[in-house]
């Protein structure tokens, strides 16, 4: 196990825009990196380059001292000792579930007994022990995804690549699987790279979160850090469910703003040069006082309502409420804290 290093990696598919552009990233030894970013930003492409399915058009990838790939040469995937859950699962339709899961073991030539035990264990973990003899075509979407998961975790890889491994699972299974990842990570010490659209998943599992957009890396930081101190508008709006306001901030203020600092700014219209301010929903309190906003929409989410509030100048704030305000109502809010991006 060693550090995974991406050094100025680019990938062109010949479509004009590069899928990945000059991305540099270190994943520390035994780290658990969550890779976030909008659809089509190049996450899968990064994983595929790490695994060795695509050669970088430029730059180099190392695992510790060992060169994995650069534009000229590339270690074949079968010699990288990695494992991956594919976004498309990539199950082998001609093999049973058990054979799919056991294939990496078979290639490594383990004894029959170990083979059987490890398959059973892996299938137990993903709750598919009684589907061992089925073919992938006879499984539901989530079951297929779980087979892919079991196959990924059955060996002892140096690097584990997970491409939306839980997208098709219900919440319960998801929680169980997250637990499995955590255990696996602790037990094996493998370096893990995890692509997901589910942020609470990412935050809960990862030691570091990387945010990409349009092939570029925007920020890497531990979860708490990236949530509390995102850099730039894109990261700010991508992480968490906050809203970004353009406000006319006076100079000399700290990045973390309090209600006292915000209140005067909110009252004055945004003119001239503006700054982007991130306001998290949990930092907004619906109270009788504060500034007036109009409820633009309120959506039931079970636990609470998710509100979109409109400021006077038309900018919006997102927040939650346990009660349902009527659309069009005027509510007063205070903003405990905000973050200048």
């Amino acid at each position, binding site marked *: 196990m060693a550090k995974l290093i991406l050094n100025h990696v680019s990938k062109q598919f010949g479509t004009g825009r590069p899928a990945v552009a000059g991305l540099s990233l270190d994943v520390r030894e035994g780290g658990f990196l969550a890779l976030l970013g909008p659809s089509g930003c190049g996450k899968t492409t990064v994983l595929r380059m790490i*695994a*060795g*399915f695509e050669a970088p058009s430029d730059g180099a990838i190392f695992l510790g001292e060992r060169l994995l790939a650069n534009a000229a040469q590339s270690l*074949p*995937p*079968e*010699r*990288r*000792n*990695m*494992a*991956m859950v*594919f976004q*498309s*699962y*990539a*199950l*082998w*339709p*001609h*093999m049973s579930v058990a054979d799919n899961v056991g*294939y*990496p073991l078979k*290639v*490594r030539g383990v004894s029959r007994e170990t083979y059987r035990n490890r398959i059973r264990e892996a299938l137990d973990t993903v709750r598919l022990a009684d589907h061992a003899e089925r*073919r*992938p*075509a006879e499984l539901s979407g989530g079951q*297929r995804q779980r087979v892919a998961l079991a*196959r990924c975790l059955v*060996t002892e890889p140096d690097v584990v690549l997970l491409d939306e491994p839980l997208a098709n699972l219900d919440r319960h299974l998801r929680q169980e699987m997250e637990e499995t990842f955590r255990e696996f990570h602790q037990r094996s010490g493998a370096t893990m790279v995890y692509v997901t659209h589910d942020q609470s998943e990412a935050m809960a599992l990862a030691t570091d979160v990387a945010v990409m957009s349009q092939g570029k890396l925007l920020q890497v930081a531990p979860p708490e850090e990236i949530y509390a101190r995102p850099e730039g508008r894109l990261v700010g709006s991508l992480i968490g469910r906050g809203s970004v306001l353009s406000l006319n901030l006076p100079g000399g203020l700290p990045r973390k703003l309090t209600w006292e600092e915000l209140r005067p700014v909110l009252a004055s219209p945004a003119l001239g040069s503006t700054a982007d301010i991130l306001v998290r929903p949990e930092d907004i309190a619906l109270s009788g006082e504060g500034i007036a906003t109009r409820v633009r929409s309120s959506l039931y989410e079970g636990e609470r309502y998710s509100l979109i509030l409109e400021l006077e100048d038309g900018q919006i704030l997102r927040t939650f409420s346990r009660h349902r305000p009527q659309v069009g109502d005027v509510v007063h809010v205070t903003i405990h804290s905000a973050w200048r991006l």
Partner: protein
Amino acid sequence: MHGYVRPGNSQPAWLFPFIVSVVVVLSVLPLARLAVTGITAFADGGAVAVLTDRALWQATYYTLVTAVLGTLISVLIGSLFAFLLTLTDIPAKGPLSFLFVLPMMIPPQVTALAWVQMSGPSSPLLKALGIAPPLGSPQPLYSLGGIALLYGVQHAPLVYLALRAGLLGVPRDGIEAARLSGAPALRTFRDIVLPLALPGMIAGAAIAFVSCIGNFGIPAILGIPASIYTLATLIFTKFAAFTDRTFGEVAVLSGVIALISVAGLAVQERALGGRDYRILGQAGAATSFQVGWWRFLFVPVLLIVLFFMLVAPFFALLAGALVPAYGVPLTLETMSFNAFQEVLLRQTVTRTAFANSLFLATVTAVGLLCLSVLAGYVLTRRRDVFARIVASLIEIPYALPGIIVAVAFILVFAAPLPVFNVTLYGTIWIILLAYFASFFAVSLKPVVSAYRQLDPALEEAARLAGAGFFRRLKDILVPLVAPAAGASVILVFLIACNELTVSALLWSAGTQTLGVVIYNLDDSGGSDLASALSVLVVLMVVVMMLLLEWLAKRLPKGVVPWRS
């Protein structure tokens, strides 16, 4: 109620009956008529004598041994080419696969003769190397092994085309997942690629096997000198000494061939049995294996194989066309283009034959593609006993030697058709019908295996979009099985183009085919003319393939087998 169908049924109600009636006309009727004639010929007994004749069982044994060995060899060569030329990054893939399709155009007799000469006492090659055997030493090709080897060589392109279509359907992420699991290229090939391409491979093997059973040219040249009779050559000897029992004997022999081919089909079903080949998600493996330095081994190997399969026989043909008489050494002085002039300018029948064969081959290839697309759909969707019976009935005519198919068609169609009161016999249409019957299996095989690999969701999505049966056939299914459809059309076209034995009995004035003309020229001592015409046929096919190459941009991806 109007518009409702049986549950789980995606084909229109008329489709299966339609296919059944086609099969009845093309296969059941002629075969049944032959059987009836055969039984009547045995009116006074005698069937037992035929069945207990040692020659029959000997021939059955030889047929089986040569066919199985030949199939193995053709699967070996065909798979080597299909794999290297479809999935790896070796150089010159296009030209190599272009050339690999051509050997099908060289009549088997020519290849056989070329090889006999190449390995015989008068071989220029062996002479040059100084290892030519002395005059009169036994010819190693006159043996079971020799027959099998030639079968293998002759049918390798069939396997190549069918398997290539299968390989194109293997999903890329499946290969990648295997590589990441730690499987090196060969292992991935064995565990993932091959099993997933199995339908294509088995289709190819089945076509090769059935072609071997029915082949006449190769065992006639290589077997008879060593007194090795296969069922096809044995049938021919029965016709040579015609008696009133001949039809009976021939029907029995045909029955044995039919049994072998049905058994072959059963083996094939067994091999595919119960498994699922539906590719889930995105297909399209494209280039997935880097060969690296191995290319310096692979490319020469492919070139050597091509030399023996294509170059040597072709130059034997060419030499035969350029010398004035057989046995005259080819030198600059003896060389003459007389034969070409004769067939091109003076023999009017050449033009007729070109026109006829082109017409027959084109209509057969295209017509059978349409039938195959429909039949393949039905046969993969309904997997019941009836479907299996229909599949066998489609198979049998191709397994039978052409002369039998022709006889059966004469029996049915020599008399005017009832109701319509027209006689097909003596027109080009009966040849066309017989071609449809003979080559249905060739056309169907790759298409069926492609259907097997399809992800059913793709058709379902089209149904929900509102597309009726024909609509989704045209827009979705056919483009998705395009590589197989391309293979199917090209296979049938090439085979029909220099087909001989079926048309030999069915032609009449004005409906000569190229095969018939070449054979007749050769048989009448004009071997130089025959060679010249064969060379011209090969050239014509090359030109047509180049035309296809030019068209390829407008055709769905994968249709043209030598483009990747």
